C-alpha cells in the first residue's frame, strides 16, 4: 500500500468517526431546537385559547381537533404548564401519530379550565433521516475530494520523492560524480535530499579513499620489496659467502617473494570486490580450460599427474577473460598442489556445470571453511591460502555456485553457472 493510499484511508476513517459523532450532535441539537420551537408554538396557542376563553366566556367543554377545554367543577389552583408526548389519531393520515401535548389548568373569570393542546411533532425519525441524508451526501463529496487529492498528491507533491528514489536506485558507489537531487519546496524532502546528498558523497569519498588505499598499499609494498630483492641479489653475488650466509639470503628472498604475492593476491581480491573487472565477453569455458591445462602441462608431467577431460558440452559464459583465466588457473593449481604423487585429475564440463576432481590426502580443515581467506590444509604450507578465496569471489561476482565434496581420497569442486550462462 503506498503512502498516499494509506493517508487517504486514515483520513477517511477519521472523518467517518467525526461524521458519526457530528451526526449525533447535529441530531441532538436539531431535536432540542425543534422541541423548544414546538413548545413555544403550543404556548402561543395556549395564550390565544386563554384569550378566547376570556373573550367568549365559554361555559361548556370544548373539543376540537387540536385542543380540548374542559370546565372543572370547582375552582382549582392554576397548574404549571406540563408537556408530554402522546399518540393521537391524525385525521388526514388516519393513523395514530406522535403528538406533543400541553396540559394546564387555568382559572379565567372564576372558572377553572383544564386545557389540553396537541400538535403533530416533527418526529425523531424525520430528524434522523434528514441528518443521515445530509451527512452521507457530504461524506460522499468528501470521499471524491480525498480521492482527487490523493491523485494530485501522488502525482505532483510526491514527484520529488519519486525522483530521489530513482536517483538512489541508479547510484553506484564506484561512480565519480555524486548524485544531484531535485530541488523541492517540501521541507521533509529537502531534509531527506540533504541527508542523502551528504551520505552519498561521504560513501563515495570513503569508497574511493579505501580503493586508493588498497591499490596504493599494494604498490607501496611492492616498491620496498623490489629494493629488498635487488639488495639481496647484489649481496648474494659477493665473493666468499659461506653456506650459512647464502641460506639466510635465500630464505630472505623467498619470504620477500611470498610477501609480494600475498600483496598482489589481496589487491586482486579487493579489485574483484570493488567490481573493477567489469569487462564482459562471451568466453568458451572449455577453451580456457585447455589453455590453462597447456600452461600446467609441464608441471603435471613432472609430478606424474594423469589428467582426463570429459567434454560433454561447451558452455559459453559471459565474463571478464582475465578473471575466468585466474579462476581456472587457481582451480587447477589447487588440484595439482593437493594431489598425490602419480595421482589424477578428472575434469568434466557440462552445458551448465563443470567439476574438477582430484586425488589427494584427506582434508585437514573444515570443508566449510575451504573458501575462506588464509585457510590452508597445513599451516606450515608455503602457499598463501588465497587461491580458493579468489575463486569464490569470482564465482560470487558472476552468480556461479561452487561446492566441495569428497569421497575417500577423491576431492571434487563442482561449479554451476547461472548468472553468466548464456
Amino acid at each position: 500500500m503506498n503512502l498516499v493510499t494509506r493517508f487517504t484511508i486514515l483520513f477517511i476513517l477519521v472523518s467517518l468517526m467525526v461524521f458519526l459523532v457530528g451526526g449525533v450532535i447535529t441530531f441532538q441539537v436539531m431535536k432540542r431546537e425543534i422541541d423548544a420551537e414546538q413548545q413555544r408554538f403550543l404556548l402561543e396557542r395556549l395564550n390565544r385559547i386563554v384569550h378566547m376563553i376570556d373573550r367568549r366566556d365559554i361555559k361548556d367543554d370544548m373539543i376540537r381537533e387540536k385542543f380540548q377545554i374542559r370546565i372543572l367543577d370547582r375552582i382549582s389552583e392554576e397548574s404549571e404548564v406540563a408537556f408530554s408526548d402522546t399518540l393521537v389519531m391524525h385525521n388526514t393520515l388516519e393513523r395514530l401519530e406522535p403528538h406533543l401535548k400541553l396540559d394546564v389548568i387555568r382559572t379565567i373569570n372564576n372558572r377553572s379550565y383544564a386545557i389540553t393542546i396537541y400538535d403533530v411533532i416533527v418526529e425523531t425519525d424525520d430528524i434522523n433521516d434528514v441528518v443521515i441524508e445530509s451527512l452521507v451526501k457530504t461524506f460522499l463529496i468528501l470521499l471524491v475530494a480525498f480521492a482527487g487529492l490523493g491523485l494530485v498528491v501522488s502525482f505532483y507533491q510526491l514527484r520529488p520523492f519519486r525522483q530521489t528514489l530513482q536517483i538512489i536506485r541508479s547510484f553506484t558507489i564506484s561512480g565519480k560524480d555524486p548524485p544531484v537531487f531535485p530541488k523541492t519546496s517540501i521541507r521533509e524532502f529537502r531534509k531527506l535530499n540533504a541527508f542523502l546528498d551528504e551520505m552519498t558523497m561521504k560513501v563515495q569519498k570513503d569508497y574511493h579513499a579505501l580503493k586508493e588505499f588498497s591499490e596504493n598499499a599494494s604498490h607501496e609494498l611492492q616498491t620496498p620489496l623490489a629494493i629488498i630483492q635487488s639488495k639481496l641479489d647484489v649481496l648474494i653475488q659477493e665473493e666468499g659467502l659461506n653456506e650459512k650466509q647464502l641460506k639466510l639470503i635465500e630464505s630472505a628472498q623467498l619470504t620477500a617473494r611470498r610477501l609480494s604475492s600475498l600483496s598482489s593476491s589481496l589487491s586482486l581480491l579487493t579489485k574483484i570486490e570493488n567490481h573493477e573487472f567489469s569487462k564482459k565477453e562471451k568466453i568458451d569455458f572449455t577453451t580456457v580450460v585447455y589453455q590453462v591445462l597447456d600452461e600446467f602441462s609441464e608441471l603435471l608431467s613432472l609430478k606424474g599427474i594423469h589428467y582426463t577431460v570429459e567434454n560433454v558440452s561447451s558452455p559459453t559464459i559471459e565474463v571478464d577473460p582475465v578473471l575466468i583465466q585466474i579462476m581456472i588457473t587457481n582451480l587447477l593449481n589447487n588440484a595439482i598442489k593437493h594431489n598425490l604423487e602419480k595421482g589424477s585429475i578428472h575434469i568434466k564440463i557440462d552445458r551448465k556445470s563443470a567439476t574438477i576432481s582430484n586425488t589427494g590426502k584427506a582434508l585437514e580443515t573444515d570443508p566449510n571453511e575451504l573458501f575462506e581467506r588464509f585457510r590452508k590444509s597445513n599451516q606450515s604450507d608455503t602457499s598463501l591460502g588465497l587461491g580458493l578465496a579468489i575463486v569464490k569471489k569470482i564465482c560470487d561476482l558472476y552468480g556461479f555456485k561452487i561446492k566441495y565434496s569428497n569421497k575417500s581420497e577423491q576431492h571434487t569442486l563442482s561449479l554451476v553457472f547461472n548468472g553468466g550462462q548464456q
Partner: protein
Amino acid sequence: MKLLVIEDQKELSDNIQVYLENEGYICEVVASISKASEKLYGYSYDLILLDLMLPDGDGLDLLQTIKSNWPELGILIISAKNALDDKIAGLNMGADDYLAKPFHLAELNARLKAIYRRKQQMGEDLISFENISMNMDTYEVRVNDETIELTRKEFDLLHYFIVNKNRLLTKQAIAEHLWGDFMDSADSFDFVYQHIKNLRRKIVNAGGMDVIHTVYGTGYKLKA
C-alpha cells in the same frame, strides 16, 4: 650497451646500476621525466628502463614521447602496479617488455639483453660461453661444434645461465624465470634440479666441460 634507467627509488636504481655495470652496461640513472627528457635529447642510448610511477608524471606519457622521437630504442617497463591494464597499455604503446616489481636482477639482465639482441639484428644471433654456442634464431645449441638436442625449458635455462654467467642464480630466480608465477616454490626447486641435471648431462655427454656449478645447495653458477 648504453642504458638509461628512469626510476625514482634511489635505493633500487643504485642496485640496478651496480649489478648491470658489472655486466658491462653503461648505466645512467635519472629519477624524473624531466631529467629523462634532458638526457634523451642530449645523448643516445640503446635501452631504456622505465618505471611507470614517477614523481612528475605517468611513465606511459614518457613512453609515448620516446616511441615517437626515438622509435629504435628498446624499452623495458618496470612497475609496482601489477595491473594488467598497465602492462597491456605499455606493450601496446610500443614497450618491448614489462617486468613487475619486485624482480630478480638476473631476470632484469636477461630481459634487457633479449631486447637488445632483438633490436640489433645484425648477422647471425649467436650467444656463446666457452665451447657452448647458442643460435637464438634457429634454437640450435652446439657443444664443441656438436649439435645437442635441448627441450625448450633446457634451452631457456642455458640461455639464462649464459647471459648471467659468473653470477649465482638462486633456485628461486631460475624457477621464476622458467615458470613465472605458475609454480609453487616447494615444487619448483625439485624441477629446477631435474632440468639442471638433464642440461648438465647433455653438455657433458657432448664432450663439454661441466660448467654449471652448484653453490651450497642454494643455487647455481655458470663458470669456466
